[in-house]
């Protein structure tokens, strides 16, 4: 097991290297726009552009730029370890910016995850057990609607109806729970939850629908397994057939899916954050891409990839504990 984890950790490092390389090629090699020109303002002099290029380091050969990026990543830079450099937009530490935005994305992801689990799993279980019932048909129709609705449209509709028309919901934007040095305006648990409610729901709907469909399918599959027939043949009460033998088989694969989905969103729930104007990792990454803010792009891509590969490892380890047939060597 230890050997396996070590091997996986090495593989993670390899994958992250490939990701940085790929990001570098896409964002440093492909584009025709020069970030220095963007940063120089309306009527830049050639000297100013050259100066900015020197500050950014984009005047060096591409290969050197990549090596410097790697050196900073592994050994740290003027902002500490890991070194992500400074943003081209405001010359602030990218790492600092990301840290300050992480609570927004975490709030969004965790809240939405709780909602979609609480909605998706019970609906899926009931649907799977009461197949072809009215409840099953209705919830599967709603689930299909749920996976079909675009988050950004749902978000805007909700903002229009509940905030603008009815005035019963909070507006877009993020309000922190605790007051910190950077906090401007209101803060506190209630305003936080109020502003989070609609983004949580908009983000959770699609996942809830997807999980309901997945859990239903798993339940149907598990309940037709031979071992369920054995459990019934033993004379077990139906509730322990379903809840002990059935759910154990049906919900174990959900763990994998859930881990990966949460990791994906922690890397930035881009569309939700853009729709609700929340200053999270996703919005930061999106702005970075639009503004050719190369260090910020590298950092956010790497962070997102890190969440994904790391979650992958954790999920595999957890799975080995849940399913005794799986053993890693």
């Amino acid at each position, binding site marked *: 097991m230890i050997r396996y984890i070590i091997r996986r950790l090495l593989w993670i490092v390899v994958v992250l290297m490939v990701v940085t390389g790929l990001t570098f090629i*896409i964002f440093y090699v492909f584009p025709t726009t020069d970030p220095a020109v963007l940063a120089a303002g309306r009527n830049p002099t050639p000297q100013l552009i050259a100066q900015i290029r020197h500050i950014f380091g984009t005047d060096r050969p591409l290969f050197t730029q990549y090596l410097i990026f790697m050196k900073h990543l592994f050994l740290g830079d003027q902002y500490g370890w890991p070194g992500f450099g400074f943003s081209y937009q405001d010359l602030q530490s990218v790492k600092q910016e990301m840290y300050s935005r992480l609570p927004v994305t975490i709030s969004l992801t965790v809240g939405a995850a709780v909602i979609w689990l609480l909605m998706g799993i019970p609906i899926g279980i009931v649907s799977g057990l009461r197949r072809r019932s009215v409840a099953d048909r209705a919830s599967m129709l709603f689930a299909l*609607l749920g996976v079909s609705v675009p988050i*950004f*449209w749902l978000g*805007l509709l909700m903002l229009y109806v509940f905030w603008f028309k009815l005035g019963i919901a909070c507006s877009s934007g993020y309000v922190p729970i605790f007051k910190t040095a950077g906090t401007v305006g209101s803060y506190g648990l209630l305003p936080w939850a109020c502003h989070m409610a609609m983004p949580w729901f908009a983000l959770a709907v699609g996942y809830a629908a997807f999980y309901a469909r997945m859990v239903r399918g798993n339940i149907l599959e598990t309940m037709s397994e031979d071992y369920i027939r054995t459990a019934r043949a033993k004379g077990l009460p139906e509730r322990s057939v379903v809840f002990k033998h059935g759910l154990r088989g049906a919900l174990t694969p959900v763990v994998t899916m859930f881990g990966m989905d949460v990791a994906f969103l922690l890397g930035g729930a*881009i569309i939700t954050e853009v729709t609700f104007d929340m200053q999270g990792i996703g919005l930061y*990454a999106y702005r970075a*891409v639009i503004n050719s803010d190369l260090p910020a792009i590298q950092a956010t*891509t790497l962070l997102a990839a890190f969440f994904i590969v790391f979650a992958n490892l954790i999920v595999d380890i957890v799975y080995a504990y849940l399913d005794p047939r799986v053993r890693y060597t």
Partner: protein
Amino acid sequence: MAQQVASEPVVDPTEPELGRVEGRSPTQLVWARLRKDRYAIAGAAFIVVLTLLAVFAGFIAKYVVHHGPNEPFIFSGTAPDGIPYGPSSSFWFGHDTLGRDVFVRVLYGARTSLIVAVVATGIAMIIGVILGLMAGYYRGAVDTMVSRTIDVMMSLPILLLAIGLAAVCGSDRQGCLGGSMQWPSGPASTAMWFVALLLVILGAMQWSRGKAARGGFIIFLGLFAALLHFPVPLPSISPGLPLVIFIIAFVNWTYIARIIRGQVLSLREKEFVESSYATGASDWRIMLREIMPNLAMPIIVYSTLIIPTNILFEASLSFLGVGVSPETASWGRMISDASANGIYQFAPWLMIYPGLFLFLTTFAFNLIGDGLRDALDPRTAK
């Protein structure tokens, strides 16, 4: 449940159906089940109507509502304070901020959505099937390379990279690949018309012989070929669309390759493949004649399931402002324009109609995909 069952008509074994039913092939069974699925039929009907609307968008714009997708009615369409006017008898879905007709733009947006989703799915399918087939069939080094590439691709924050690719490649009119992806024009487009016409005639012939399902499908393909022709002479579509298609295909092939690889791995252990191998058939022959036919059903099912995802993907890219070029009508971009500066609060039709069409189209494709999957595997059907 018991009463419900008892009330179902018991099949009379003397009815003439008897001989036919026993000999039904799996494909016929799937069709028979699919035809009974009212939801799937409704979804298919919606897609057919939408495709017709998209094909005849230009005709409708010219002869029904009498204005094009990019005609700005600045003075008659927007109030002095810049807020556009809402739906009226000649502007059914209202004006946008430039005074353009939202209804016509929604129709043109259907073109963008359908073309991007179907073509991107097709390309992803081709790449995915070829790589999945090779990996599953040859195993060993080929499999390792393909599988590892898929692993890395799946570790990428795909939306972020797609936005990045779209942003950096869309900033230049040549695009990243030097504009090598171009829609056919000139003689190629004439050929396309010919193919479309041929397909429609062929489909009609099949239909008249009583094979309505197959005929309908071929006619639909013909109409689609006709739809593919339309964007060609429009200069508005050339740089953005191929790029978006490429990006979506690029992020999608991994799912298909993984599924196909798994299928091939189990198929190649089957007796009919081994016997074919034993008779000395070449690898190509085995792959094309023995394995490919068995992949047809998974390919159809996954295509119908991936198309709606790709429609949402295109809309998301356009919503984030990195999709098709600004003058091309796209539902995602229309919603994005509506959300800019909160204009949708005063002109909700800007966001409601394109969003509704996007939602319904995705839903319709999902209904078809779901129905198809249920028809293939009735054990999990609703």
